[in-house]
């Protein structure tokens, strides 16, 4: 108590100092003046037991300190213990996030106001805070130097050599009509100076947190209202969103990037920018406006004007209107929201976005906006008795399409205007061509490949502005573009003309890639624990089979693979489909070849397995399933037909396992959250089945919370941000008059990803074998050892590490346990319903959550120690077997039905120093082909060794574009969170 009293006093002193400064200092006073009036906020600070409690109130420019927290405080910081208050005040970013992750500090109330509080504190304590950041950067730098001492720097040269060496491939695919050397051995990036320059530019700048979107959307709503329209009448969000989109797209700045062949930019920064929606991803940035440019990971460029704009104008308007806050206010702070904010069990990505999908780009290319409007009007004409929802949905779609037209028209004018000032005749011609293309598309159907790519570009960014630019995927780009390629080629008569033209196509696709790579999702520092280094994950999918089951590999497949090789970007996220027995070995080898050259992309998907998994979905037509494409990390969705929102929920499977071990209590957060399913200490579990039942019940509890929360968020998104342009490009929405998030699409589902499979399976195997079968240890003894992080039980730790076969060892007992757990999870989700009337699909990929969730997890019976990362995706533990083939065979034998949202199976392979490029590719293709033939669903290789990774940690300047696959997404290694870098170094490494 004395402790509390002293800290209480200390805290009061601190707050009074702060208040005094704001009351006295003119510059600080100025920060409290918003564009729409004073920025007012009351913030409480207290310990969980309320022994320390204080508040600070900013009201009309006056700041005062209160001894009681008023009931109407905007937000309150709750500390576990008095000492945590002081520790948090002095913590570096990593230290403070570890405190948050461990539940030592949490926030109550409005998260955006919490950001405002951080913003205001930073104005006074910015220097000290930055010192803590710099201290952390320096500590990490030193750790990296120690780690890399004595490692070989050969990776630097080897990587360059890999890029220079080229294989040739014969033409052997029936769908390849024109290419005589499908591997394009003749081209390197130097042959495309335009692409080389655009790429170089991208790597030379930091992403800018831009203000245009925030300003425009706030302008619009300040002028026209949000909850009610300007006449004070209720405003149907379907119409409101349509009007908003028309305004945003019609008023955004039309820009053409220097040297680009395509008109349009993602943001006002043509090279690299983030949109920053104040109602979703950017709502967490208030507290970091002044620090994000100096942070350790992915620092943003932000102008002083933008900081002022967001702080004084944009954020105050959205403080109570952001999705996260609306979830809490409209649903009365539901249990799922409370779980979300503690970061240990479920991450509800739907608080940010609903956008992991494959829109029907082919519809835009075939019909244009004019054709789509006609289709909409025809439907309104046909269905005279349409209800209000349908009429408003369709009207909203039209408004969005008008916005698209307005943006394209502005771009076209801009291109023409730039022509007049352009001195270089070649560039002048390119600008004229951009101008002409944009006069035609996307308003009208595309006739040439260039028009098609221009149309896709404009559509992509408009969809991004409408939804949120995470994972709006380009679908089967080779299938969509091949008809235009063939039509263009047919017009050329000589081989020389055709060769020249394919070079031009490589440039065009390269420009599309670079346009797509010109944006990031604005993310707060905490995001680095969840998806460090992740791009917005627009996916491109190639290869596989056509809807009627034929070989789909074509000329564009190889052109896209060539661009993937040349640009070696982490974005788009490239996926290669492979149909065993049908797609050629030349194609598979080319996929392996590009993977080898780029170290990390593309990922491989087995058509047989994915199609089999999706075939369990009732009512899904086989020809549609065969048309699947990846989105997000690895998830399959049906382009233009499917509202899949595939990464809605990211669930820690180890949390329910730990709750089963602790009778419903989650240990690190110390929250008695789950049902009481039996205490190990009281001898409640007499058989393994007893315990498994407890685990299954805890899973069910967590999964129910996940589904409930996601369904709330889905309804909420529909009510506030319906996706109307996306609806216009999705089969079923026009006909049904129901928007994308309301179940209008032909197919509906929501996707889940499960984190920690191998760790849970291995732990269950230990309990089954050592406790119940061999009785080598009692359950109570095992639990005590686990609770004590095995510190007192090295022999037991050794025993669990060596005597129990793990998943991935080839032992059928272990494999069956994995199948059983996956069945338990998969059955639950297949039987759940989402807000769109679809089912939930189950996936086993982990973003960077295997590191973040590992941090908040105690030791496990598997022998994994407290705080250590889980294995990524559903990759077996490195100690499961010395033979990669055991891993491959086990993963290949899992049940497709329980992984209909796909898996991420990461394998790190390292070629020997003497292995030739061709030999490496042959071996990789050998693994890929066999794994697919055995039934494996997905496989992704990181072709890089630990020495290179260590060298890159210590000498990032030599490796700025070194790519690695995390779990589904691809990142630049040197920009990754420190702990994620260490996890990658630790991964099992197989010599190739």
């Amino acid at each position, binding site marked *: 108590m004395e402790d509390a009293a002293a800290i209480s006093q200390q805290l009061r002193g601190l707050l009074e100092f702060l208040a005094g400064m704001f009351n006295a200092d003119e510059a600080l006073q100025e920060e409290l003046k918003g564009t729409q009036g004073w920025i007012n906020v009351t913030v409480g600070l207290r310990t969980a037991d309320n022994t320390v409690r204080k508040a600070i109130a900013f009201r009309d420019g006056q700041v005062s300190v209160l001894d009681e927290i008023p009931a109407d405080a905007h937000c309150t910081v709750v500390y576990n213990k008095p000492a945590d208050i002081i520790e948090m005040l002095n913590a570096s970013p990593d230290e403070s996030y570890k405190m948050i992750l461990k539940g030592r500090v949490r926030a109550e109330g409005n998260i955006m106001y919490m950001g405002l509080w951080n913003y205001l504190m930073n104005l006074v304590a910015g220097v000290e805070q930055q010192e803590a950041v710099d201290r952390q950067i320096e500590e990490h730098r030193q750790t990296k130097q120690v780690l890399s001492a004595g490692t070989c720097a050969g990776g630097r040269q080897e990587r360059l050599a890999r890029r220079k060496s080229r294989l040739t491939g014969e033409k052997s695919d029936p769908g390849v009509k024109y290419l005589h050397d499908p591997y394009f051995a003749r081209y390197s990036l130097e042959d495309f100076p335009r692409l080389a320059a655009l790429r170089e530019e991208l790597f030379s700048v930091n992403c800018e947190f831009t203000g245009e979107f925030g300003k425009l959307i706030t302008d619009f709503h300040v002028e026209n209202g949000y909850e009610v329209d300007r006449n004070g009448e209720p405003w149907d969000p379907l119409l409101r969103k349509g009007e908003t989109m028309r305004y945003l797209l019609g008023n955004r700045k039309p820009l053409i990037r220097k040297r680009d062949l395509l008109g349009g930019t993602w943001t006002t920064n043509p090279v690299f920018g983030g949109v920053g929606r104040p109602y979703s991803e950017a709502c967490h940035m208030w507290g970091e406006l002044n620090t994000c440019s100096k942070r350790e990971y992915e620092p943003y460029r932000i102008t002083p004007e933008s900081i002022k704009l967001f702080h004084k104008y944009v954020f105050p308007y959205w403080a109570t209107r952001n999705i996260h806050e609306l979830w809490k206010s409209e649903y009365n702070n539901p249990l799922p929201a409370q779980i979300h904010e503690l970061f240990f069990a479920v991450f509800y990505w739907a608080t940010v976005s609903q956008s992991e999908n494959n829109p029907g780009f082919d519809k835009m290319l075939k019909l244009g906006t004019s054709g789509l409007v006609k289709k909409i009007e025809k439907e309104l004409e046909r269905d005279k008795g349409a209800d209000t929802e349908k009429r408003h949905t369709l009207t909203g779609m039209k408004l969005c399409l008008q916005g698209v037209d307005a943006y394209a028209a502005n771009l076209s004018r801009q291109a023409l205007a730039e022509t007049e000032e352009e001195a270089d005749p070649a560039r002048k011609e390119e600008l004229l061509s951009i101008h002409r293309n944009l006069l035609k598309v996307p308003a009208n159907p595309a006739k040439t490949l260039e028009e098609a790519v221009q149309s896709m570009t404009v559509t992509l960014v408009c969809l991004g502005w409408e939804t949120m630019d995470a994972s709006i995927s380009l679908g089967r780009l080779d299938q969509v573009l091949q008809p235009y390629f063939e039509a263009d080629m047919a017009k050329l008569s000589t081989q020389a003309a055709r060769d020249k033209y394919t070079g031009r196509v490589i440039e065009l696709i390269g420009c599309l890639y670079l346009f797509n790579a010109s944006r990031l999702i604005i993310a707060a520092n905490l995001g680095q624990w969840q998806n460090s280094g992740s791009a917005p994950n627009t996916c491109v999918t190639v290869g596989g089979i056509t809807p009627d089951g034929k070989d789909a590999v074509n000329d564009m497949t190889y052109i896209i693979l060539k661009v993937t090789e040349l640009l070696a970007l982490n974005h788009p996220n490239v996926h290669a489909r492979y149909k065993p027995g049908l797609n050629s070995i030349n194609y598979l080898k080319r996929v392996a070849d590009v993977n080898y050259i780029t170290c990390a992309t593309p990922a491989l998907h087995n058509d047989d397995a994915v199609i089999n998994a999706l075939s369990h979905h009732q009512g899904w037509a086989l020809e549609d399933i065969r048309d699947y494409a990846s989105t997000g990390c690895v998830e399959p969705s049906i382009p233009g037909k499917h509202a899949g929102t595939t990464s809605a929920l990211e669930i820690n499977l180890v949390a329910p396992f730990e709750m089963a071990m602790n009778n419903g209590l989650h240990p690190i957060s110390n929250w008695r959250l789950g049902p009481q399913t039996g205490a190990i200490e009281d001898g409640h579990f007499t058989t393994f089945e007893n315990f498994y039942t407890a685990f299954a019940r805890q899973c069910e509890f967590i999964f129910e919370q996940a589904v409930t929360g996601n369904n709330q968020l889905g309804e909420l998104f529909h009510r506030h941000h319906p996706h109307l342009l996306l609806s216009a490009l999705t089969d079923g929405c026009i006909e049904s008059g129901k928007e994308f998030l309301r179940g209008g699409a032909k197919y509906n589902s929501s996707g889940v990803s499960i984190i920690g499979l191998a760790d849970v399976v291995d732990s269950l195997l230990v309990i089954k074998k050592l406790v119940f079968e061999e009785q080598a240890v009692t359950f109570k003894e095992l639990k005590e050892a686990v609770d004590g992080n095995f510190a007192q039980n*090295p*022999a*037991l*730790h*050794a*025993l669990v*590490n*060596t*005597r129990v076969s793990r998943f991935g060892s*080839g032992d059928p007992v272990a494999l069956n346990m994995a199948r059983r757990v996956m069945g338990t999870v998969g059955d639950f989700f297949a039987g759940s319903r989402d807000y769109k009337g679809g089912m939930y699909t189950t996936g086993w990929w982990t973003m960077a959550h295997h590191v973040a969730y590992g941090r908040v997890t105690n030791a496990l019976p598997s022998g994994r120690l407290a705080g250590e990362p889980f294995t990524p995706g559903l990759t077996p533990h490195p100690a499961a*077997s*010395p*033979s*990669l*083939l*055991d891993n*491959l*065979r086990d993963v290949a034998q899992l049940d497709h039905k329980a992984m209909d949202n796909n898996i991420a199976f990461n394998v790190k392979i390292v070629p*020997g120093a003497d292995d030739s490029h061709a030999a490496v590719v*042959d*071996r990789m293709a*050998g*693994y890929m*082909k*066999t794994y697919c*033939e*055995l039934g494996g669903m997905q496989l992704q290789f990181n072709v890089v060794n630990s020495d290179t990774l260590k060298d890159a940690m210590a000498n990032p300047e030599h490796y700025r574009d070194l790519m690695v696959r995390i779990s589904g997404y691809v990142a630049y290694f040197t920009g990754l969170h420190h702990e994620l870098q260490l996890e990658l170094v630790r991964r099992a490494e*197989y*010599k*190739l």
Partner: protein
Amino acid sequence: MSKKPLILDIKGNSLDDGPGIRSVVFFKGCPLSCRWCHNPESKSPRLEILFDAAKCVACGACAWVCPRGALSAENPFFVDRDRCELCMACAGVCPSGALSPAGRRMEQAEIMEKVLRDKPFYDNSGGGVTFSGGEPTLFMPFLAGLLKNLKEKGVHTLIETCGLFNLDRFKALVLPFISTIYFDLKLVDPGAHQEYCGAGNNRILENLARLHTLSRGGRFEIIPRLPLVPGITALGENLAAAAEYLSAHRITRLNLLPYNPLWIEKLTKLGLKNPYPAEHPLMNWLPQEEMEKCKALFSRYGIH
């Protein structure tokens, strides 16, 4: 010689012991005793016990169950091998695997089951199964049973041999089922061979020559291998003699194997002292430029 060998290990996903993706079956026991043997635990055909100090967690369980009192941290290499009767009770209770048996009797069926699991990978990579050791031809009938079975299933077979065997038996039992032979040619001088490998080399050289002649029929291939051991085999004189021998028999292929000192760490697990000081050539990797020089020497004879 017992008919069933002890198997040291079956290594999956091997990429260094023949073409493609392979499994390698290691037999225990060898008629030679090369000083630099990379698998010292494979020399004796008898069961042995291994102790890995790095894995030991000092729980004391082993000493508790040992009926002979042979285990103690006081012993120079933990196991008193004079007392130990190889009952393996300790290995059974050791939680960390620090104590383990070197070698296990395996039935042919068990070996077949293990290696055939990976057949799809052999098929897609041009790989197969390699028999190594030790010396697999010490157990010809057993080896032949495995080879025959694999050949019938269409699996590529390879043996790595020291070459010291009865050729007539080899031709009758083993050769019909072999795809490739990796045949060691270590030292050409008989005296040196006797000194460093513990046996003469007349029969080895003769077997190599005769098998090479037979291989001209195209039913199998034979590739000689020469381990480049510093100060022993990687000497100009020996290499020149090897080159002369090979060209005399019109053999144009040779795999040179660079030396590495990793085997020395295994000695202590067997209770043996490392006899070499740190600066001894056998304690170090063969330098890359040395390897290049050796390669160049053979190229001058048209051997690659």
